[in-house]
């Protein structure tokens, strides 16, 4: 019997009676990371990495029953050994390994291979079966080195500042915002962020995990002309987003790698920056896991599973989950 199965509630381990990132309320949930498609509300007990604990408490409620674990530390649930390994996706993101009677399964959650300098870098975990994401599981998605992208972002900001234009950069509030914030060049201007980003930064700061901070946007006579503002994209159409005069708006997302992705947002500037593994990253991770069986969840899963079968001769299949990866809709 499979150690993990996919049922109506999510990925389920019948022997341990535990779910991983379930999408419906369950008794006991192991959580890979704090994004809303993976950490949902309503479970009786949560188990997550230590760094995810403050994030989950802030997002799902202070009173959730949550237990934090360290990377590499094994614990047992009904005889199933359970270990968290860094996934390099965002702060606190983990791959979860379940071992029972010599059989190892790894659920990657979302991950990236690139070191971002903010979260604990990805570690390959050897196993027999790997359940992987494939958000960018097509060869057209190949990321440039992070340094190149941040050079572009700072250059764009600098040019705008020289032309007295406000720079607005659209990003997820958890994960990419912290990553961008860390590498912005504060000599160009002041750095502001939307409240949703500041809230998370504060939580992380209080927990002693992450210390870069952006200023709060306060309505007064300030014009923000040489400044940069980090915000989730859905705020742009609101009153809040419209207070900035003649801004230059950019999007930081893996989807910016393709023309149709850029067109979809209709923005003049796009930076290819993702917290997900690109094509080469996915392949490296799968090979490094030495898994014989691969189960592909969200993303271009059918194409990627077919690729793994034909190219590497792996037993690969795709399953339907409620995970969305890097949503093109945000």
């Amino acid at each position, binding site marked *: 019997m499979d150690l993990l199965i996919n049922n109506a509630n999510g990925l389920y381990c019948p022997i341990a009676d535990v779910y991983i990132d379930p999408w419906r309320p369950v008794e006991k949930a192991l959580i890979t990371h704090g994004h809303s498609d993976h950490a949902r509300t309503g479970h009786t007990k949560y188990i997550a990495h230590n760094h995810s604990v403050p994030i989950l408490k802030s997002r799902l409620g202070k009173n959730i029953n949550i237990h934090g674990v360290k990377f590499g530390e094994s614990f047992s649930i009904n005889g199933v050994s359970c270990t968290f390994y860094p996934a390099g996706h965002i702060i606190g993101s983990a791959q979860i390994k379940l071992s029972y009677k010599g059989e190892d399964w790894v659920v990657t959650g979302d991950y990236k291979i690139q070191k971002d300098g903010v979260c604990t870098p990805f570690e390959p975990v050897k196993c027999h079966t790997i359940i992987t994401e494939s958000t960018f599981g097509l*060869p057209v998605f*190949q990321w440039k080195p992070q340094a190149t992208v941040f050079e572009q972002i700072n250059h764009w900001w600098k040019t705008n500042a020289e032309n007295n234009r406000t720079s607005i950069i659209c990003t997820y509030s958890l994960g990419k915002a912290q990553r961008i914030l860390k590498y912005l060049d504060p000599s160009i201007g002041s750095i502001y962020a939307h409240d949703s980003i500041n809230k998370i930064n504060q939580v992380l700061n209080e927990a002693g995990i992450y210390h870069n901070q952006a200023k709060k946007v306060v309505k007064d006579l300030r014009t923000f002309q040489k400044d940069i503002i980090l915000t989730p994209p859905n705020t742009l159409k609101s009153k809040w987003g419209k207070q900035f005069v003649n801004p230059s708006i950019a999007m930081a997302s893996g989807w910016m790698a393709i023309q149709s992705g*850029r067109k979809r947002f209709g923005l003049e500037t796009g930076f290819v920056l993702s917290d997900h593994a690109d094509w*080469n990253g996915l392949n490296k991770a799968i090979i490094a896991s030495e898994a014989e069986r691969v189960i592909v969840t969200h993303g271009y899963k059918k194409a990627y599973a077919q690729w793994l079968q034909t190219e590497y001769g792996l037993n690969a299949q795709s399953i339907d989950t409620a995970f969305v990866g890097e949503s093109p809709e945000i």
Partner: protein
Amino acid sequence: MKSFINLLYKLNDGNSSSNVVSALLKYFNRASTKEIIWAISLLKGNRPKRTITPPVLKKLACEQANIPTWLFEMSTKITKDIAETSALIIEKSTHVHSKKTLDQWCIILLELATFQQEMKLVKIIAIWDQTTAEECLLINKLLIGSFRTTIGQLELVEALSIFLKIEKHIIAVRFESDWSPHDESLESLFEKPNPKDHLAKPFPFCFANNFVKQTKKSIDILSFGVEYFRHGLRCQVIKRENSLYIWSKTGQLYTRSFPELLELKSLPFDFVIDGQIICSKENHISDFNRLESRINKKRPTKKILIDIPIMINVFDILEMEQKDFRSFSFEKRRQALNTVFIDIPVTMPMVLNELFYPSTMEECNLLLEKAKEVKAKGILLKNRTSPYLENRNDNWLKWRKDPFKLKTVLLYAQKMNRSSVYNHYSLAVMNKDLLIPIAKLEASLPKKNILEISKWIAKNIVDKFGPVRQVKPSIIINITFEDIAVSTRHKSGVILKSIKMVSWEKEENVEEISHLTEVISFV
């Protein structure tokens, strides 16, 4: 080439015309004049001949990236562009843009086309190796001849005119002539003065104000001449010293699109006339649907010239034998027009718009009522004593005929332009016992109603086709439209023009909606 690529990003569709012009200007100011001439040639739509075919590009890219063709095809489903997939799948050794400029690349690609196929491929691989993914994308597009932009001639001409400080009409005329970036420079193409430059210069157009109710009462009909206006392309046709120019009211040069009118060159005198180009088999009856397919053709083929003949419906004369007529009264200009063009051969693709002098308001109303019969959009009232003024003024008054009315039912709905509500409707009428779509348009009802209908749609979906939702036929929408024409592209066999939604109601019984036969009877 980096600045050209940046420019292309900024010319994304949906950008306003002024943004496009300022982006172009920024680029012109930065680029060398050598590069600009190649850039405007590409933006004009002069694509270099394809060097290799898309399948060859695909095969080469797959080999280089070590990727099976099925995966390439899967990827192309996402990118929707073979040139892009090919540019992205190859692992890049460099992320720094090459130092070569656009003109240098264009010349390299032109040379490449002269090599044997095998040598071509070797050279292309070498190019891929030296360039970033962004550069590769543009180069691949040029290689397979799929480079396109959405930018219009007007914006290009305006930007060049500001940049070179040369009058727009001179830029437009030279820009539209046949030239190759190989043989020309910015200087030789635009800056070299030509004694004939002034010949092409159009006059500013005179436009009519809408005829509103208050003015209806207060005007003295006896001081007006009345004529029909049609669905056509308003144009100024200039014939000076054996050259002919056709300008639209937006300042676009259309001389090449309507070669029929070159026949006017044979007339033994010079003139500038104002009129509408209409698509017509019988005199005066215009077919807007067919005309539109002509307007979009920069160089019409022989078949199109035969299938969709056009003519100019003239209603004013602005210059005659180099004498400016604009200060003359309308009546006098009309007389001149009549005298000059009275003897033109009937084969000439030109007619004079009929002018009426109604003596009462009732007669004027009768003319308006007849507008439907003669397929006009409405009538124009022109003050007999008025000179030809620039811009919009009250000397000319536009009175539209009453629109056609239809009772339709909502059949399909769609969320467009990232809207959170259903804002695009397909409306249907009855055809025997079935519903047949007659119009697809953006919902133009008050916001509150659109929201309400959108909520109803969400609950009453019958079927899904991609982003399109089929709904239960219960929302009756009353529409009006200004014109109708036969169409082979539409299921219903007709196309409607200037559709407006007037009102809506929820009704379980949809038997009351209009029938297709009723619609066809309008044609």
